[in-house]
């Protein structure tokens, strides 16, 4: 028995630091999925495009000698514009939020190729945000985990404070009841555009941090990121619950940490990597189907989303 489990655990433990660094970075994508979905009731797929967009923009800027911090900020700005576009398409033309996101992420693929001029780009040897902190050993997982971990905590606290301000409550109101918000004098268009834009900016931030961590950008790096993010969010919400803003904000981060550890455990236990996407998809399906399976004999309630 032990001779089966021991090597599995051994290879799993060896993977913990790299998985931890990776999941902290990707937790920003999960945040970028959660914010529109849960706070604004705007199910959004833009993150699948905004994540590689942020990565590609950042890679090109850094390889041209731009300061990594500035490059990250510009990448976030680009992600913000992508998210704003999705929200605008939905509001102005009445296109379903999911379809609006698919349109934007498809167009972003070409934009990424145009920006980089090729399908992938190495930035090994260039300055990165990690080498700014620890020039001697920028690839140490300690630096990455520490730096991104601090960023996670800062952003969590800032968001928590924001949602309890007068401005913050208007965002939650738009998601809870858009028509009532309008009657209360809230500019629903502005809030939706800014909110979805900010979410995509977080996805782009994840892309920018990731390419600096792995040393290259690839136009296909976003493929499947959405379903991973959704799985993380669902796990996170199962852990924290959703009845307060604080729990809702913690869910993406705890979920990402848990989900990527689970994946790494599965891989260490011998799950063939090609099967991973099927397993993830099946898991998400199961978690989403669970409430309606529990309610035997009743049709599921129709989910209220913006059409």
């Amino acid at each position, binding site marked *: 028995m032990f001779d089966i489990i021991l090597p599995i655990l051994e290879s799993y433990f060896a993977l913990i630091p790299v998985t931890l660094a990776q999941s902290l970075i990707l937790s920003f994508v999960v945040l970028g999925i959660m914010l529109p979905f849960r706070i604004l009731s705007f199910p959004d797929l833009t993150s699948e495009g905004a994540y590689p967009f942020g990565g590609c923009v950042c890679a090109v800027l850094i390889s041209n000698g731009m300061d990594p911090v500035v490059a990250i900020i510009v990448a976030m700005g680009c992600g913000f514009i992508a998210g704003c576009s999705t929200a605008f398409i939905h509001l102005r033309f009445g296109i379903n939020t999911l379809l609006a996101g698919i349109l934007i992420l498809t167009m972003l693929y070409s934009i990424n190729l145009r920006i980089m001029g090729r399908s992938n780009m190495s930035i090994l040897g260039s300055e990165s945000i990690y080498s700014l902190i620890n020039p001697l050993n920028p690839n140490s997982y300690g630096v990455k985990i520490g730096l991104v971990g601090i960023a996670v905590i800062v952003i969590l606290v800032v968001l928590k404070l924001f949602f309890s*301000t*007068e401005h913050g409550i*208007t965002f939650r109101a738009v998601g809870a009841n858009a*028509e009532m*918000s*309008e009657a209360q004098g*809230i*500019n629903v268009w502005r809030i939706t555009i800014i909110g979805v834009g900010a979410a995509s900016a977080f996805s782009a931030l994840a892309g920018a941090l990731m390419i600096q961590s792995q040393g290259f950008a690839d136009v296909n790096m976003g493929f499947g990121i959405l379903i991973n993010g959704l799985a993380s969010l669902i796990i996170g919400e199962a852990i924290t619950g959703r*009845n307060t803003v604080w729990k809702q904000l913690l869910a993406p981060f705890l979920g990402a940490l848990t989900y990527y550890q689970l994946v790494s455990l599965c891989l260490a236990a011998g799950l063939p990597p090609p099967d991973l996407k099927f397993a993830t998809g099946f898991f998400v399906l199961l978690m989403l189907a669970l409430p309606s399976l529990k309610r035997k004999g009743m049709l599921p309630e129709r989910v209220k989303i913006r059409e």
Partner: protein
Amino acid sequence: MLSVSNATKIFFAGMPDEKKALADVNLVLRKCEFCIVIGSNGAGKSSLLNAIAGKLLLDTGKIAIAKKDVTHLSVHKRAQHLARVFQDPLAGTAASMTVAENLLLADLRGKRKHFSPGLTKKRRRQYEEKLSILGLGLEERLNTPVELLSGGQRQSLALIMAVSNSPQILLLDEHTAALDPLTADIVMNATIRTVERFGLTTLMVTHNMQHAVDYGTRIVMMSSGKIKLEIAGEQKTGITVGDLVSQFSVKNDKVLLQECRV
């Protein structure tokens, strides 16, 4: 306070199913007036309210609140002048947010928002005070999500939210129609109390003729997008439910005849 002049709105203009929702409607409300709008389904009552609230943009005509032309203002910009209670109790409140958060939203209506904390202790105390007017015990449930309240409680909350920062115009869109008779009475009484207390200029749409007789300073009857009848002053004090209902059928039959001739 409120003036609607020559308001016209035609749906599907020029098509076979053309519908005149509003046909040259003129209405002036003085300050503190309580006007009740009655009429059969499709008479244009809701269109009138929607036009005033900004949900429905007029084809022609003008709407002014306190002498300010608001004809082309969007719903959220008009919200600083007027407040509205919807027929559906679910529509006027944010279900997933708490009672206090909903009141905060109403409190901030039409005001500049800041990055300062929203629900301060001072505000909570004010909200408790406001809710105690209702006498429903809502003041002890500030932190309860609104989705856990009953329909009547939600509608009462929506009413308090609407009147909370003394809007220039209060629009009530059949706001007791979806409630059971007892709760409807409670909400209606609370409405009258708050309207009198804050001296609000009110426009109320209702199908309840007893309410139309008992309350308000003026009755306006609409039919086919036009104002067919206005009852105010002494005429209003002597009127009974029977009188109103008879007006209904007479007016409707006339309309029917006219339509037949055409």
